[in-house]
């Protein structure tokens, strides 16, 4: 063991061979000699259960007596080393504080009385006398000092032991907290990807202060829940062949609920337009089809046409026209967005790119930024009109279709997005290499 041999060369010159054997057999040591001292001393065998971290290895066959003995020798050696400035004691260690306390509490003469203490120690095997620094025989006759020393050593041992146990418990607590924190962070990250906000401190749902994005995510999650409930009600009504009147009531509720999400998106667009545009409030698969912060009405209608049959001639014309109109409006809005992007690029790249600054250039820069800011401000308008388009398309569809067809259409739309969301969940949970 290279580590042990390092300990051998540095520390064990003051010990005789028996102590060296104890050290080698008893504990796993790392490279830092002082750390080794501290570590060996921490292998206290207490009457109760042993509190060991995973990094400590302790042969269970070593008995209490041997370790207490080792502790004493090592504590005194540490004092000696510190007093002779042969080693730098690491800071920020409660154990070291204990060490310091012990060092400060015991006068230098303790070192020389060590052998005496050991002689009086009944737990020690074999009663071997050991030398530290060679000055161990001068004070055998002073009983009072011996008793004081015994008591002090015992107290120190006890204090050190308690300190070590406290430290161990604290460190374990920190470790488990850290682990839990990492787990929670991962959970949060996963949930955010799915566009669900998990409130970390109380209920922020009703306050728009702080973070508009988070507030919207909360509202959206709630909106989805309510929509699921309404759709289930609608599905039950359709399956049970409810009357048109009853269906109409539920459908009106569903449409009003759609109005609600567009209203919420309007508020969110004011607070954080980029959050809406990013689609981070939606699940990954939904984000794939993202257009101006939401779904494409024209695509939705294309999907629905097949499922809505039979349609009358008039209805078919109506739906086809609707699809075409929404497509045209979408194209128009997309072109406007492209123009905005181009305009923004031109604004930011005009003037003197890359040249050194002068007062004129600074004014230019400020002017450019101001203009760019103005352009960014118009993004909200685009999202607003995109949502307007979605809302109008849904309402027009409802006008063209019969009550029962509308019900089926709303169910189909919900099912489609549900499947996209389910796909997202599967995707996020997929096994990876």
């Amino acid at each position, binding site marked *: 063991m290279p580590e042990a041999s390092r300990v051998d060369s540095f520390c064990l010159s003051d010990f005789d061979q028996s102590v060296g054997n104890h050290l080698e057999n008893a504990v796993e040591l790392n490279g830092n000699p002082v750390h080794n001292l501290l570590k060996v001393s921490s292998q206290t065998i207490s009457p109760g259960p042993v509190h060991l971290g995973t990094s400590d290895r302790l042969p269970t066959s070593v008995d209490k007596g041997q370790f207490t003995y080792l502790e004493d020798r090592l504590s005194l050696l540490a004092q000696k080393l510190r007093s002779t400035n042969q080693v730098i004691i690491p800071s920020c260690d409660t154990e070291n504080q204990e060490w310091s306390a012990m060092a400060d509490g015991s006068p230098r003469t303790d070192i020389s009385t060590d052998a005496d203490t050991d002689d009086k120690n009944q737990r020690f095997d074999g009663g071997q006398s050991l030398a530290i620094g060679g000055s161990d025989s001068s004070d055998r006759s002073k009983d009072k000092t011996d008793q004081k020393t015994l008591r002090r050593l015992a107290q120190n041992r006890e204090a050190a032991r308690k300190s070590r146990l406290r430290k161990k418990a604290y460190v374990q607590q920190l470790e488990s907290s850290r682990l839990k924190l990492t787990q929670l962070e991962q959970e949060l990250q996963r949930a955010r990807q799915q566009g669900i906000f998990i409130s970390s401190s109380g209920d922020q749902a009703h306050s728009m202060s702080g973070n508009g994005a988070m507030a919207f995510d909360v509202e959206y999650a709630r909106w989805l829940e309510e929509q699921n409930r309404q759709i289930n009600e609608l599905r039950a009504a359709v399956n049970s062949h409810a009357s048109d009147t009853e269906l109409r009531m539920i459908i009106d509720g569903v449409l009003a609920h759609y109005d609600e999400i567009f209203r919420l998106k309007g508020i969110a667009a004011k607070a954080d337009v980029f959050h809406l545009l990013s689609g981070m409030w939606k699940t990954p698969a939904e984000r794939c089809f993202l257009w101006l912060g939401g779904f494409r009405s024209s695509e939705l209608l294309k999907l629905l046409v097949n499922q809505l049959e039979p349609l009358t001639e008039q209805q078919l014309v109506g739906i086809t026209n609707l699809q075409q109109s929404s497509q045209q*409006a979408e194209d128009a809005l997309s072109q406007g967005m492209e123009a905005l992007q181009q305009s923004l690029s031109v604004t930011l790249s005009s003037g003197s790119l890359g040249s050194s600054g002068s007062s004129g250039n600074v004014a230019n820069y400020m002017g450019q930024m101001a203009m760019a800011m103005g352009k960014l401000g118009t993004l909200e*308008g685009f999202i607003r009109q995109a949502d307007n388009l979605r809302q109008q398309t849904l309402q027009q569809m409802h006008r063209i279709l019969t009550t029962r067809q509308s019900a089926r259409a709303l169910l189909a739309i919900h099912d489609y997005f549900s499947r996209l969301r389910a796909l997202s969940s599967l995707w996020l949970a997929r096994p990876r290499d």
Partner: protein
Amino acid sequence: MDRVKDLASKKAAVIFTKSSCCMCHSITQLFYELGASPAVHELDNDPYGRQMEWALRSLGCNPSVPAVFIGGKFVGSSKDVISLHVDGSLKQMLMDAKAIWF
């Protein structure tokens, strides 16, 4: 206001815009897509631009641009145009004003 009304009556489809307004670009593109050839007046390039903008606002147009007139009559801003297009009314209006024929 007079100038606005005057310009609006000169063609079947008239759109008041600003050169920097990208939403105006969208609405104008929509009209082209429908086959209409609207007269486009940029307020920021008109000497009476400011008064015209004020006049448009007083008509209830918010934001003031794009402001759409069909057959001399005020139709609305982008929101109104999109809504009317979705329910088919826009096309009908354009046909009635002879801005388009199909």
